[in-house]
């Protein structure tokens, strides 16, 4: 038995995955410090347990793992995070990095690969799984302002109300929206929201 060194906060809504992670960690230098199945549960748990590493599923019932990591970073949680998904997803590693994660892992990978990713991030290194295809060329990251606009669009806010909410002119909103559309490769608001959800931006 390796002596425990690192505490892990696991976020996954699938009980079968949670059990698999728990069993896989047994006898390693990692131990489960907490388990959550929704974004809502994690925000408090991460503060209380102060884990050494976060292991977060990409698709959660009440949001995307990328947004959860972004929120945790906003709350001052600095523990390295590994985002995991069962699917090789285009642009996943870039989206994870932009959200503040240090690594990505494929659930279809081996236990050794999981450990390699977790060991790398607790050692202060990045570990992004190369099996996630890179984002298409020209798809640059959204700026914080563009993400704000997109979030308001997703909430059904009109351009005029977006301008008021962000304290900018209507023209600025149009410019931010056009830039966002270009970066996401879409032409309409609904398309932008759907694509942003898919990419884990919202």
């Amino acid at each position, binding site marked *: 038995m390796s002596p425990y060194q690192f505490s892990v906060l696991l976020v996954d809504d699938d009980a*079968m995955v949670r059990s*698999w992670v728990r*069993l896989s960690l047994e006898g390693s230098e990692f131990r489960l410090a907490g388990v959550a199945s929704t974004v809502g549960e994690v925000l408090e748990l991460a503060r209380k347990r102060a884990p050494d590493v976060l292991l977060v599923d990409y698709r959660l019932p009440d949001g995307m793992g990328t947004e959860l990591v972004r929120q945790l970073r906003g709350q001052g949680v600095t523990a390295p995070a590994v985002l995991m998904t*069962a*699917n090789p997803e285009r642009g996943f590693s870039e989206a994870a990095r932009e959200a503040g994660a240090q690594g990505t892992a*494929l*659930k279809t990978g081996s*236990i050794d690969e999981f450990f390699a990713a977790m060991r790398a991030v607790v050692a202060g290194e990045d570990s992004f799984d190369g099996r996630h295809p890179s984002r298409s060329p020209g798809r640059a990251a959204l700026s914080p302002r563009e993400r704000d606009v997109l979030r308001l669009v997703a909430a059904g806010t009109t351009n005029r109300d977006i301008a008021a909410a962000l304290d900018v002119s209507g023209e600025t909103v149009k410019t931010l929206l056009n830039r966002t559309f270009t970066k996401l490769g879409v032409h309409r608001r609904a398309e932008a929201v759907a694509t942003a959800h*898919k990419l884990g931006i919202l």
Partner: protein
Amino acid sequence: VNDAHVDLLSHDLRNPLAMISGYAELLLIRRDEAVRVEAAEAILEAASRLSTLLDELVAELRPTAR
């Protein structure tokens, strides 16, 4: 069927598949009976989930269902 549907379908199918391979790996490396039983049960459950999903998919794709 659009890209988003295909992604979701792929995700739903790969999740139980990932668990089958993950728990099978545990069966190979762990000797304790309790863990082996839990792993075997999980593999059976994941296979059942996968089978249900495939049944639903086949039913949806069958031309007579449209």
